[in-house]
């Protein structure tokens, strides 16, 4: 077996927990999208072209609410701004790959594949085959789960009565806790959550997430680390 093929398979293995998570969340999304009026084809197009869980949930609920296309796209953009940092953080591991390859692989960067890749690589260079195995497996699982959920549609609606849509917040909980490495992170998280709740009450739809993120991250950055003050 060639080294590239081995890397590809190790990427697939790393994707397996993500696949199970995506199956649950993707099914929930498919059912929800169908009951919100999207067709199976529209769900497939969204999962293939957009491939972002929280954006798709938010976009679908805004479509169902009859929001303006510009507002939906702008909100999606705000929700996705967090990927800027993940993309920057992964850059050193792909700097040896050709720029065009980087630009193609970046399409598959999600919260979950980012956490899996960075945890596995620990800053070491990634082979294109490894990332392809991880990324493609995750994307295939997402498309199959969402289209399957949409196709079964009403027949699976009972699942949402049992709280299947809680899979998304539960995944956010796991990703958040994985990033709480110091006390400042906990403080920033609590501040962001409270600001976001206040914003949800007082700001127009979904601007609360961006406003709370910008302010809470600024508070964290302005709060000097203890070692800096001592040195």
């Amino acid at each position, binding site marked *: 077996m060639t080294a590239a093929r081995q890397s590809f398979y190790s990427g697939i293995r790393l994707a397996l*927990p*993500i696949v*199970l*998570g995506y199956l649950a969340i993707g099914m929930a999304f498919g059912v929800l999208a169908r009951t919100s009026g*999207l067709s199976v084809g*529209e769900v497939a197009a*969204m999962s293939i*072209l*957009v491939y*972002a869980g929280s954006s798709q949930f938010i976009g679908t609920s805004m479509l169902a609410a009859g929001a303006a*296309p510009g507002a*939906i*796209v*702008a909100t*999606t*953009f705000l929700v996705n*701004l*967090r*990927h*800027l940092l993940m*993309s920057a953080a*992964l*850059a*050193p591991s*792909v*700097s040896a790959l050709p720029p065009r390859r980087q*630009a193609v692989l*970046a399409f598959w960067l999600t*919260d979950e594949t980012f956490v899996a890749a960075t945890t596995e690589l620990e800053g070491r260079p990634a082979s294109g085959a490894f990332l392809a195995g991880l990324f493609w497996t995750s994307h295939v699982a997402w498309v199959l789960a969402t289209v399957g959920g949409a196709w079964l549609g009403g027949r699976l609606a009972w699942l949402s*009565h049992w*709280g299947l849509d*809680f*899979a998304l*917040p*539960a*995944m956010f*909980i*796991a*990703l*958040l*806790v994985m*990033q709480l490495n110091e006390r*400042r*992170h906990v403080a*920033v*998280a609590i501040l*962001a*959550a409270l600001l*976001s*709740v206040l914003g*949800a*009450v007082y700001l127009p739809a979904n601007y*609360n*997430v961006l406003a*709370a*993120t910008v302010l*809470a*991250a600024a508070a*964290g*950055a302005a709060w000097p680390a203890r070692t800096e003050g001592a040195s």
Partner: protein
Amino acid sequence: MRAQVLLVILGMAVVTYLPRALPMTVLSRMKLPEAFRRWLGFVPVAVLAALLGPALLLPSGGWQPVRENLPLLASLPAFWVAGKTRDLLGTVLTGLATMALLVALRRLGVG
């Protein structure tokens, strides 16, 4: 497929792709100011918490008594498992199982 929905999907695809690709391909070749990088370092924690806060405290858009707020109740074991194991799948399954249990208890008139 409706043309307007397809247009929205294409727009969403573009604004989802750009933040994924730009830093990796462009910013990695530039030197970012230290203060900006420190701020960026808090963004993942802040954005996940900002998404979670309303999802848990204002489910279905408004405040509910804690006893009736199933997402908030189900988040407690999920947080506990996440802290103990740092395991994505285990946390999701714990959250979903707790949620199903809470729904079942409520249907039985216990919760």
